[in-house]
């Protein structure tokens, strides 16, 4: 393994030290680990996300005005622990409450849920929303459900703007659910990533193979397929994304008044001709920008054929999987409200416009 790292157990800390040096408007806390904005003058709902490290710039790169108030990074591909979310939330709470944005992984869910209970015990108003947009997972009954992947980036942008606009906790939670049911993603790996602590690739792919439906930790998806070419793979990915089979699942939502979890049934919304979308063509780590544009070209053509209007696009490294060679495509159906929130100013290390 060749990586620009030193001691394996210092990888995440040393990254955070770099972020602290590079971005003087962020407050980087090392024990427990969290990143918050230095400037916190406004009374508003605070938006916090977090998850295992290795997906940079997600989430630390999205802390700043117009997006996240705080991010809690775990060890590499390991969810953060409840004490991180607990302290981070107490730091940024203005009394308007906290919204946790959780990517659907068992570890993330269990740790965030524990933090929710701890914060509730301290009298903090708190709400949590799952993002589970990876359509490669078909079945919610016999798996832990669809994984949370790159739609999370778009959710953080839109919800961050909503918080700045003064949405209260209930309204912003409702919007978060709306996004969760309207975002779809699909990933493909051409080669595996190497987790520093493991020292070798997470799985083995032959030269002529791809993992179709890869997760952002190298979890398998639908199947291992023969490598064909860019357009064929993109077309196959888009048919998975455009499949309108409704996805229904039970999610747990925290009831602030009762102080307990409530089961709620969620169902995805269809994507039809005439709809407007934001498209994210995302680098999973080690894919050249030229290939991302190649993919975007085909995605745009396919959506045009379906008479689906691309209103905005993002093309680059937004939700990565260390040094994995591969890409993911996300399509988020938007309405005018979501679009105008998306366009609002944002000033973070990894996303910046309008300011």
């Amino acid at each position, binding site marked *: 393994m060749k990586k620009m790292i030193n001691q394996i157990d210092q990888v995440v800390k040393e990254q955070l030290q770099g972020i602290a040096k590079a971005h003087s408007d962020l407050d980087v806390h090392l024990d427990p680990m969290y990143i918050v904005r230095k400037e916190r003058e406004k009374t508003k709902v605070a938006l916090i996300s977090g998850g295992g490290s290795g997906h940079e710039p997600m989430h630390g790169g999205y802390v700043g005005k117009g997006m996240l108030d705080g991010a809690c990074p775990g060890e590499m591909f390991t969810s953060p622990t409840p004490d991180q979310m607990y302290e981070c939330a107490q730091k940024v709470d203005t009394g308007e409450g906290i919204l946790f944005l959780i990517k659907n992984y068992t570890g993330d869910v269990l740790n965030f849920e524990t933090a929710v209970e701890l914060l509730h015990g301290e009298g903090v108003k708190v709400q949590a929303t799952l993002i589970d947009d990876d359509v490669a997972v078909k079945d919610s009954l016999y798996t832990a459900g669809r994984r949370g992947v790159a739609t999370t980036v778009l959710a953080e942008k839109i919800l961050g703007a909503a918080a700045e606009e003064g949405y209260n906790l209930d309204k912003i939670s409702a919007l978060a659910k709306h996004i969760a049911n309207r975002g779809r993603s699909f990933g493909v790996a051409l080669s595996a990533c190497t987790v520093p602590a493991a020292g070798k690739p997470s799985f083995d792919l032959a030269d002529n193979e791809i993992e179709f439906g890869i997760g952002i930790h190298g*979890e398998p998806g639908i199947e291992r397929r023969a490598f064909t070419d860019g357009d064929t793979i993109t077309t196959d990915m888009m048919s998975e994304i455009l499949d309108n089979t409704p996805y229904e699942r039970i999610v747990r939502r925290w009831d602030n008044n009762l102080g307990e979890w409530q089961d709620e049934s969620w169902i995805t919304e269809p994507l039809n001709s005439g709809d407007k979308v934001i498209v994210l063509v995302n680098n999973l780590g080690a894919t050249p920008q030229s290939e991302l544009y190649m993919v975007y070209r085909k995605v745009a053509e396919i959506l045009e054929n379906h008479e689906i209007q691309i209103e905005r696009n993002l093309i680059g490294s937004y939700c990565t999987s260390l040094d994995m060679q591969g890409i993911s495509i996300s399509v988020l159906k938007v309405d005018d409200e979501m679009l105008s929130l998306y366009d609002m100013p944002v000033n973070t290390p990894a996303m910046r416009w309008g300011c």
Partner: protein
Amino acid sequence: MTITKQQIVQWLEDSADVFQNEQDFLTELDREIGDADHGLNMNRGFQKVKEKLPSVADKDIGTILKTTGMTLLSSIGGASGPLYGTFFIRAATSVMSKEELNLVELTKMLQDGMDGIVQRGKAEVGDKTMIDTWNGIMTSLKQDQNISVYDALNTAVANAEVAMKSTIPMQARKGRASYLGERSIGHQDPGATSSYLLLTALSNASAQ
């Protein structure tokens, strides 16, 4: 006939050594059907527990277990952190202010812990998780409550091993391994294995 506070402390200290020794083995199991970090995380968590133990070793069993749970909660990460953290925090509830436990009390303690895991993780027997091992352990302990703690734990280790190995032909329905579908069949579950290791450490401590 009972298990003392000193043996409980011994159990937790020995667990730290066990997870250090078995770190690579657990991580390798997790590489096959998960994300290759279970050994690393368990070792990190229990080394922290070992550091913390001297400060609570003279307290009652409940306090020792609760401190262990809180420490694991904030240091393991992944799904195992909240699950093992909850296990020890819940296990502590019925043994607060106790200095030693008979088999009935120990069984209740472990059952509370297992119930905590079930409540947080929502897994059922047969889902290919640590619950399969715990179910084997609890069934074994409840068979005969009139024997010594040492004998009961000894038998439970044998049953836990069978339960752990029963996860090999199972298809995972919870956690990250569930995404593998049928490809998860043929691999031993890492969480079921770490729970087995935890029990062997308890059994060994009860012999000393």
